Each structure stands twice: as structure tokens, then as C-alpha cells.
């Protein structure tokens, strides 16, 4: 008799993976808490997080959007202006430090920088450089929009029962002078790069973990009953600013993010980890869910991830009301500033 004798079938690679058609691999997640259709769910994070909101909306879950667009704006134009991409108009939050930065602003901690980038006669928000496709008309308009986003970010935390956060990157760009972090390197999507002001840092496990813990603590202080569901983006880096090959840098970065997410889930009863990263990236799935560029996740990959998510929820909470089949929502493009870095690579 060994401890392995008591392990279920899912614990053994041969029976749980090797002997199965990859689409039959199931039971990948044992959710800690139920996520039901009537729970307001907020979502933030990297580009991949955008799929979460769309999947929830398609299944008529209560996808919480606190910063809503004006009523006549068409769905297409709402997306152009980044409404409904996340629960408020934060743009992509790639790192745990950037999440902490938003949480601090929302909680009124620390100082809110006044940095604005000017491009011709337009004004760009360094913390949401693509939030308005052509920038803002005036600095005052930008400042007002930034404060509005912070207000609705806070509201989304206060009103959500579950917040999903997708960890995307460990590499980050910050301002040495005012200690703020940008979602993307200045001089790429917008702004001017200045090596005297802007610095690169690839966060360690400890840094990612500390930032996420601190962000989580602020969110819990704003909403004590909030549950947090972490995922890790399976999407590789578009480019690295470090010295390693981008493939190695990707694995390094994703390994840290995956470890932090696992550690957080292990230590906190209100934090869970959903393995979308593994579903897309495990060799068991043979890279089948990537588009030909081996970076972007295909529509079928996203669908498989989300079906796994809802299947695992149903299996763990069978008493829950049966969820609706997804409506055939138009597949929308994911908004991802990080992809702009590809333009800086060698030309073919």
C-alpha cells in the first residue's frame, strides 16, 4: 500500500492524459468556490483576460461593467473606445505591480501622477495609451477620463463578488522619477523613451508575489467578501527587453507568474487559480490551440478553455442552475498594446 493507491484517476498521466483524446482531458480544476450566473464578476488583466468577459457575456453570466458607454454607441464603436473590454476602462493590466498601482489609486493611497504624453495636438494617457484611439482633445479631458476610470475601477471591486485577474507579464517599464509603472514601454505605443527617466525591470517571484498580495489586500479591504480568481495568460511575449531569447524569456516569465498564482491560491481560501495556461500550453494539447504564429490563442482554444471552466464549475457545484449555452457572439478582436512591440523587430 502506498499513498498513490488512494489517488484518483486524474492523478496519473497515463490514464488522465496519455490514454485520452486531448478533447476528453477533463477535471483539470477543482474550484474552491462557486461562480454562478447571478454573481457580479469583474475581469482585469492582460489581453487574454478579455476572453473571460466575452465568455461570461455569451453565457449570460453577470459580467460586471461599471464604466459603461453612452447608450447609442454601437457595439463596434464601444470596443473602439475600450468600453466593456474590462470592467472599467483601465486598458490591459499586464503585471501584478500595475494591478497594485490601480488598487492604490482606487483606494486613495499614494499619489496620482499627473503625467501626460503629447502627440501633435492630441494627448495620450501613459497608463492607458490606447484607451482613446486618437488620444484626448485636451489635458483636462484626459485627467477627467483617468479619474473616471479609477472611480469605476473601485466600484467594480466593491460591487463584484468575484474578480478574475489574468497575470500576463513580469517585464515592466517604470518612471524612475515618480515611481509609476506604464503598461507598455514609452516610445512604442506612444510617448518618448528617455533612458534617464524610464527603466526596465524583470520582476522576480518575490516581487510579483508581494505586489499581488498587496493588491489583493487592498481589494479585500474595499470588498471583504470578494473572491479572486487568478489565471495566467498562455500568450507568449511579443518581445523581451531582457537578454534572453524571447522563447526562454517567455518560459521564465510565465513560470514565475504560474508559481505566484499557485502560491496565492494555496495560501488564501478566497483566492483560486484556474489553469487556462496549462490547457493551452501543455504538450498534451500539442499546441493545437494556437494560431499559426504560435502566439495568439485560436477561437477554438478560447472556447475549449471556457468550456473547461464552466464544466469544472458544474461538476463541483452540480446543484447550480444549468448554465445557458453560449450565444453565437461575433468574435471580436482582442485589444493588446503589447503586440505593438512586434513592429520594433527586424523587418522580414
Amino acid at each position: 500500500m502506498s499513498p498513490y493507491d488512494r489517488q484518483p484517476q486524474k492523478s496519473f498521466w497515463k490514464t488522465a492524459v496519455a490514454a485520452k483524446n486531448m478533447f476528453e482531458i477533463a477535471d483539470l480544476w477543482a474550484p474552491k468556490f462557486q461562480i454562478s450566473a447571478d454573481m457580479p464578476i469583474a475581469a482585469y488583466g492582460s489581453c487574454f483576460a478579455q476572453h473571460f468577459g466575452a465568455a461570461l457575456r455569451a453565457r449570460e453570466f453577470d459580467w460586471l461593467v461599471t464604466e459603461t458607454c453612452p447608450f447609442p454607441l454601437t457595439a463596434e464603436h464601444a470596443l473602439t473606445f475600450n468600453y466593456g473590454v474590462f470592467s472599467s476602462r483601465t486598458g490591459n493590466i499586464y503585471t501584478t505591480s500595475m494591478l497594485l498601482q490601480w488598487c492604490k489609486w482606487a483606494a486613495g493611497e499614494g499619489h496620482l501622477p499627473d503625467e501626460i504624453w503629447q502627440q501633435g495636438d492630441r494627448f495620450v494617457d501613459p497608463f492607458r495609451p490606447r484607451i482613446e484611439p486618437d488620444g484626448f482633445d485636451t489635458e483636462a479631458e484626459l485627467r477627467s477620463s483617468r479619474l473616471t476610470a479609477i472611480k469605476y475601477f473601485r466600484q467594480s471591486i466593491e460591487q463584484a463578488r468575484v474578480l478574475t485577474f489574468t497575470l500576463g507579464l513580469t517585464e515592466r517599464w517604470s518612471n524612475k522619477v515618480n515611481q509609476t509603472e506604464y503598461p507598455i514601454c514609452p516610445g512604442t505605443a506612444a510617448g518618448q523613451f528617455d533612458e534617464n527617466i524610464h527603466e526596465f525591470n524583470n520582476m522576480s517571484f518575490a516581487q510579483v508575489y508581494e505586489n499581488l498580495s498587496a493588491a489583493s489586500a487592498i481589494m479585500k479591504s474595499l470588498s471583504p467578501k470578494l473572491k479572486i480568481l487568478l489565471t495566467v495568460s498562455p500568450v507568449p511575449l511579443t518581445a523581451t527587453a531582457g537578454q534572453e531569447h524571447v522563447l526562454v524569456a517567455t518560459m521564465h516569465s510565465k513560470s514565475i507568474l504560474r508559481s505566484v498564482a499557485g502560491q496565492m491560491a494555496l495560501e488564501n481560501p478566497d483566492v483560486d487559480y484556474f489553469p487556462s495556461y496549462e490547457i493551452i500550453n501543455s504538450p498534451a494539447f500539442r499546441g493545437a490551440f494556437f494560431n499559426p504564429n504560435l502566439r495568439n490563442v485560436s477561437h477554438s482554444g478560447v472556447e475549449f478553455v471556457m468550456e473547461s471552466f464552466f464544466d469544472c464549475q458544474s461538476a463541483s457545484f452540480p446543484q447550480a442552475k444549468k448554465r445557458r449555452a453560449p450565444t453565437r457572439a461575433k468574435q471580436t478582436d482582442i485589444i493588446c498594446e503589447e503586440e505593438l512591440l512586434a513592429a520594433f523587430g527586424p523587418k522580414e
Partner: protein
Amino acid sequence: MKICLLGTSHIAPVSATWEGGLKAKNPNHSITFFGAPGTQILGLKNKANKLVPNNDKLAENFKITSGGHSFIEPRLFDIFVVMGLCRDLHMLGTIIGGGYSIAVTTQSLVDYWKCSNLLRMVKRVRAATGSPIFAAHNPLQSEHANRAVNKVSFGEIIQISNAVAFSNLGAELIGQPSETIVRETATATRFSENALRLAVKGRPAGTLHDTRETRHMNQAFGHLWLSEFLLKLDTN
């Protein structure tokens, strides 16, 4: 000026005030009304530069409201007014003053008008004539039914709407008279008392809405509206 005023049930108080006295006071103008309730007027199609109903019911209502014409011959008119087909215009005030960026605000108004039947009908009329076209929205809902408060003036809503949707069609959206508006969002309740219904088959002119009516207006409203409009024509 030979004016063609086509529209929904909201032409009733304008028609009543014209026949009830303004016609005699304005011998330099003539107005022919073409009306039909609800959205029936959307059945008006452009056929060889004539605006022709695509169904008998609409043609019948045109005959009743115009005094015998079942279709519109654009070359017989100098000016066109399209009235109605646009509810709750004041809601645009929640956008203009709502803290959105200028780009978002502008795009929202473009999208609003793109979907509106009023603009659709103006485009249809424009395809049939090069003459000036004025667009007139439904009256704002009366104040006891409409508690909204706007941060911007109704005039601003009209001005921006013209800039984003009407001026490039050579048309102009005209707002209801300012003395009929309260809180920038509603029509003073006195104008919805004894509101007039449109005369159609089986319902004579002068028939009133019931006392709870909030969206249709009375002859006093029609008088103010038409007086202001005719003054605008005379001034220009």
C-alpha cells in the same frame, strides 16, 4: 414659400393651428400636410423623384391629411419639413454632459442619428429633392412624466446633432420653441393638456388624446412651433 410638412401624429397640432388662423395671417406661405400615425410614414418610397406610399393605408392617410393628395410631388414645394420619428431626444443630454470624451460623445451622437428614423426619412426626402429640408423632433415628453435633469441646454443638443448628422445632408434639425421647455428635458405640462390626435380614417380632426397624454401636444404648442418656424423662414 410652398411648404411640404410630412410626419407622424405630431403634425396634428401644427396642422390645427395653421387652419385655425395662421394660414390667414401668412398669405405668403402655403403648407400641405402629409401625415400618418406611428411609423407608417416609413412606407414612403422614392419612385422617379416622387415620394410615393408603398401601401394603401398610408396613401389613404395622406389623402385625409393633405386634402386629397395620395403622394408627394417634390417639385411642387420650396421647403420640406419632416416631423416626428424621434423620441426622447433629451436623452442625448446625458451624453453631452455625461463626462465622456469629445470623441466618444461625437461618435455616440453619430450612432444615435444613424439609427434614427427621422434621419432615415430626411435622407429619403433628400434623394428626391434639392430643396431645403428641416427636421423636427417629437415634442419632449411633458414634465410630469419626465423627471430627467440634463447638464446641458437643449439648444446644445440640437446644435451638436446638426453638426454630426444633418448639416452634411443640407438639412437642419430644429428644436421645439424654448418657451415650451422646462429643465432642458421636458415640455411644460400645459402643452400636453387637450393634446390633439391626428385625423385619420374614422377619426375626425379635433379629436383629443385622453387626459394622461404626455407625448402629444395641444394647439397652443402647435401655434408656438409654427409661428417660430415661419418667423425663421421669413427672417432668412
